């Protein structure tokens, strides 16, 4: 896994602004096969191609086990042994890059660090200026609605608050891209709806390119400019759907006929992809 450049906050902003034309994320022909401990192989991805533009909010939906997390881990530089190429900010990457901030399904906060110290952690790893990180962390905590909780330990927060802290942490080094892998999957439905409204606001305010992985169709339609629909394993993008609902969107958008129609369309696509699979398995 490659080492990433040690950027200061200012430099990383400068790099962010230098590339505006080309897609921020472009994948070509991604294939990934896992070897299981039993000696079998699992074909997780087959020919995954997609682009994400600057400032765009793109979601990837698909049935569970179709390879969504695998896509995320390839983008984040957390796995290798795949074929195809990943291009981030106009450059082919083979490992972690500071252009990306990742939010995982679990908040993965360090329980021994205060909320503030958790948010400044990327600064420590990237050797960024301490004072600047501290100030920025306070701003981000306010942005995610955790102002006043700086001194708390993660163990004292609710699940939703921990995910907010994880989002603030992912934004600390001012990456161009925010990558989220089912970030609200473990939350209850009400909290999840609220978090989605918050995420839309944070993404807009921070001006980030967002790539969200989810298995909730409604969530993807509510948040995204475009939704990539993935087939069941081996995963590939079977359809890209543009969401033209006006922004900013409130939760009332679910009553919009276009919202319902889009959700239905994506559901049909996913059903077709899984039932096609069923036919294949039945035929054997």
């Amino acid at each position, binding site marked *: 896994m*490659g080492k990433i450049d040690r950027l200061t906050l200012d430099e990383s902003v400068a790099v962010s602004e230098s590339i505006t034309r080309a897609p921020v994320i472009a994948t070509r022909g991604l294939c990934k096969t896992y070897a299981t401990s039993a000696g079998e192989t699992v074909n997780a991805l087959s020919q995954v191609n997609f682009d994400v533009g600057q400032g765009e909010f793109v979601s990837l939906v698909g049935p569970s086990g179709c390879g969504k997390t695998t896509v995320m881990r390839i983008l984040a530089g957390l796995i290798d042994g795949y074929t195809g190429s990943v291009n981030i900010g106009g450059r082919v990457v083979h490992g972690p890059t500071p252009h990306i901030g*990742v939010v*995982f399904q679990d908040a993965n906060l*360090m329980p021994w660090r205060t909320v503030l110290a958790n948010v400044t952690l990327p600064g420590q790893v990237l050797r960024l200026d301490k004072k600047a990180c501290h100030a920025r962390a306070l701003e981000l905590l306010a942005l995610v609605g955790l102002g006043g909780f700086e001194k708390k*330990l993660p*163990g004292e927060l609710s699940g939703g608050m921990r995910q907010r802290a994880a989002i603030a942490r992912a934004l600390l080094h001012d990456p161009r891209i925010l990558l989220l892998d089912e970030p609200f999957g473990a939350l209850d439905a009400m909290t999840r709806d609220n978090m989605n409204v918050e995420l839309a606001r944070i993404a807009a305010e921070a001006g980030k390119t967002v790539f969200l992985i989810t298995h909730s169709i409604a969530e993807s339609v509510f948040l995204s400019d475009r939704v990539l629909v993935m087939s069941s394993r081996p995963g590939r993008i079977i359809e890209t759907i543009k969401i033209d609902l006006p922004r900013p969107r409130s939760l009332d958008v679910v009553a919009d006929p276009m919202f319902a129609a889009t959700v239905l369309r994506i559901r049909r696509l996913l059903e077709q992809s899984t039932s096609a699979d069923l036919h294949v398995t039945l035929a054997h």
Partner: protein
Amino acid sequence: MTTQDNLAGVEATAVSPRLLRGNFRLNWRLRPLPDLALTFLLVFGVLATCQALVYFGIVSRFVIPLPTSIVPALGELIGGGGLGEHILTTVSEAATGLAIAVVIGLSVGTLIAEFRVAERILYPYLIALQTMPKIALAPVLLVWFGFGLGSKIAVAGVISLFPVLVNTIAGLKSCDPGRLDVLRALGASRWDCFRLVKLPNALPFIFSGLSSAVMFALTGALVGEFVGASSGLGYLIVQANNSMDIPQVFAILLILVVVGMAAFGGMQRARRKFLYWSPNQD
């Protein structure tokens, strides 16, 4: 010998710290008053029974001393002078042995947990040594390290090494991969992953090992002195035992209880300082 049973028992618990920690809590402040009263009543009851058994000649006073005779024995011991030096001898043997064990345990444990080569080379020996009752080395260590402090430090070090070593390995290996991913996604170096995630994550395990190790070290120093010494609390016990001065033996045991509690208290304070975040703490 009861020392042996103790060692086996504590060593077995050392590997699974979370399960047992709750049961061993000595937290007087939080105990409700009736509980505390019952505890003292129990102690008083046991002492009174002993006193009665010995007083009426049912048990010989060479087996159990009259509880009331321990008090003058204790006074004699403290008043006689030289006790401080004996305590200092035993405590410094235990502390030095423990310090060496901690340094070796942490560094070898880190090597084994972090480097596959080290694991493959050292792990088989580790398993073999762990199953051996290390206290049996005491006589040999006396030959190797001499009659003075050296052999006692060696015994204390050898038996307190394993809880530290085993728990360091377990702690470092127990690290949640999700937390490591957070750092890896930032391109963190292996050293950063170690210092920012793995090591703090291992602290509860390491402390659990240390708690056992502190008591092991004290036991090791005493056993070393039993085998052959010219000062220290273990030496005093053997002396008193040889002259059948059982009240004095018990007086020394009381002093050992105080020393042990002080060590335990110190560990608890360190724990609270470093493990404020761990849900298993009080």
